[in-house]
């Protein structure tokens, strides 16, 4: 599906926000109310909330670290102006009759040659419980998850949850 093709009978929204962890709670609130609007129950809404939080946290923490934009960097290595670095985080939401598709787009370093997330909780604990849980949550909490890496730059994460859930993990 092309990013710009509208689907019939859907509502298509997009939100742009700055690369700051402060926005996470705002985005969670937004996605939670959208999920309720589509008709997901509380448990499914919790999963969507968490998947979006993890995905956006990853963009904020990892996508622009090479440009000095990441909360994980020490003060001295932070870019003076994150806006100047043209870093973007876009959340596109496609509300369907029986699904919610969330597309998270950044124009950062991309995930191609990066340490992958864990595939199981065992792997997570073996690695010392320090990381890799985010992508694991995303894959387990959503019904369909796809990562794309456009030629130019960045990562496009497309994740879908269906109302009559075929979730793998509950």
């Amino acid at each position, binding site marked *: 599906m092309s990013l710009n093709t509208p689907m019939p009978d859907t509502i298509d929204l997009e939100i742009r926000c700055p690369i700051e*962890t*402060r926005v*996470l*709670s705002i985005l*969670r609130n937004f996605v939670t109310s959208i999920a309720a609007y589509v008709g997901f129950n509380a*448990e499914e809404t*919790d999963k969507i*909330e*968490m998947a979006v*939080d*993890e995905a956006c*946290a990853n963009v*904020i*923490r990892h996508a622009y670290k090479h440009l000095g934009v990441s*909360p994980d960097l020490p003060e001295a290595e932070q870019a003076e102006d994150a806006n100047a670095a043209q870093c973007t985080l876009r959340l596109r939401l496609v509300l369907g009759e029986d699904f919610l598709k969330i597309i998270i787009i950044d124009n950062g370093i991309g995930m191609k040659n990066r340490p992958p997330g864990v595939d199981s*909780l065992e792997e997570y*604990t073996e690695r*010392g*419980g*320090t*990381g890799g*849980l*985010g992508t*694991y*949550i995303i894959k*387990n*909490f959503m019904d369909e998850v796809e990562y794309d890496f456009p030629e130019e730059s960045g990562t496009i994460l497309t994740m879908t949850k269906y109302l009559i859930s075929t979730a793998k*993990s*509950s």
Partner: protein
Amino acid sequence: MKNYDLNIQDPQDGVAFRKVDVIGCLDSHTVVGFEKSLHSLLDEDVTKLLINLEQLTYISSAGISALMGLTHRLRQRDGELVLLKPTDKVHRVFRTLGFTNIFKIVEDDSEVEASFKG
């Protein structure tokens, strides 16, 4: 909107553990302050730590990793981390992901004392 607060209770006579209440959400934003406070507390040679999750409304992988970090640091000094009364929402996350097998979780104040080994 304040969506995070931490309450580190004073040491109490006759109580072998330190109790900390986490209020609000523990995500990539708030976890920074949480880790800082908790690691300072551990610097005081605390070995038995009880984190009260009764008022924790949300936890992300960043929050879970922080709890894992505390678990490891406490084990290194033969101490232990116990989690008290997580909200339904947080408990469900732990359960779904399998962390109920990793963390020691206690549902009632009366079980706290016994839950710390040794």
